[in-house]
């Protein structure tokens, strides 16, 4: 069992910390601040607990988690939202700052890991 202050947590532990930190954070007001919240939160946790250098240009799996990049934005079927793909997940960002992280690859594709409302209280799925 890792302690929050120790390095070298495994990826699933770090991912759980990331989700918990996103849940606790104040709701974002718009798309840009929601993306920034996601990036800053993930990079902060990886910097503290992965023990791995930040190297987003390295496309290969280096053991570290990286936030979705603008190039990974896909065509969103829900108006008022942006859709990003990362390995294993769909990440929806609402124009109201809502964030939804949903599994798209096994195990349990379709299951929702985070559904955080925007500052107006609405979820991504309520937009459009």
């Amino acid at each position: 069992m890792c302690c929050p202050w120790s390095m070298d947590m495994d990826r699933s532990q770090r991912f759980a910390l990331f989700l918990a930190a996103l849940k606790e954070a104040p709701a974002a007001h718009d798309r840009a601040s929601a993306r920034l919240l996601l990036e800053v939160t993930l990079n902060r946790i990886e910097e503290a607990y992965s023990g791995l250098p930040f190297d987003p240009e390295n496309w290969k799996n280096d053991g570290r988690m990286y936030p979705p990049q603008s190039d990974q934005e896909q065509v969103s079927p829900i108006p008022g939202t942006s859709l990003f793909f990362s390995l294993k997940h769909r990440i929806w960002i609402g124009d109201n700052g809502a964030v939804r992280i949903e599994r798209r690859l096994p195990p349990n594709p379709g299951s929702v890991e985070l559904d955080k409302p925007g500052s107006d209280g609405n979820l991504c799925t309520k937009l459009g």
Partner: protein
Amino acid sequence: MNACESLVSKLESWASSQTGLELEVSKPLHSTGHWFVTLHGADGYTAEAEWRQHRGFGLVAGFEFEPFSGVDEIYTTWQQAYDRMVELWATRDETSASRPVQVAELRKLRGHLQKEVAAQMGITKGGLSQIEASVDEGKVQIDTLSKLVAAMGGRLVISAAFPDGTERKVAVGR
């Protein structure tokens, strides 16, 4: 037709003869963005290619995936990506970024012919075949392997891994 559309077209033809397979294609919002081509198996097996226009096809495959991570294997051409995806589908192998490759496979993955690498090393094609075979047998000298990797445009890196999980690069040469 771009390289990813070529991959999709070939996969669609191949998939029509397969059972328990669903092919999913996700297009990017922006023209320079990344495409995702995914083979979903009824048994939960998944093989996915992410296409980056100027870098090629990144592949992952297996029954379980790590979140927010990079790809395990990278291929330059759609044909290489297609061949590997079909192979993965047939074998149900799981990809790994640390999967070792035989040196001849590495040369093919890098898109080099034997005669090109041999010429770069100043040896014959037959000589390169012998070197590649000796690498597979674990009987190659480090400087020979280093020259072979350099002839493909790379740099040989040797690491030492220990049971406690520690891994360090070993300094070889200067």
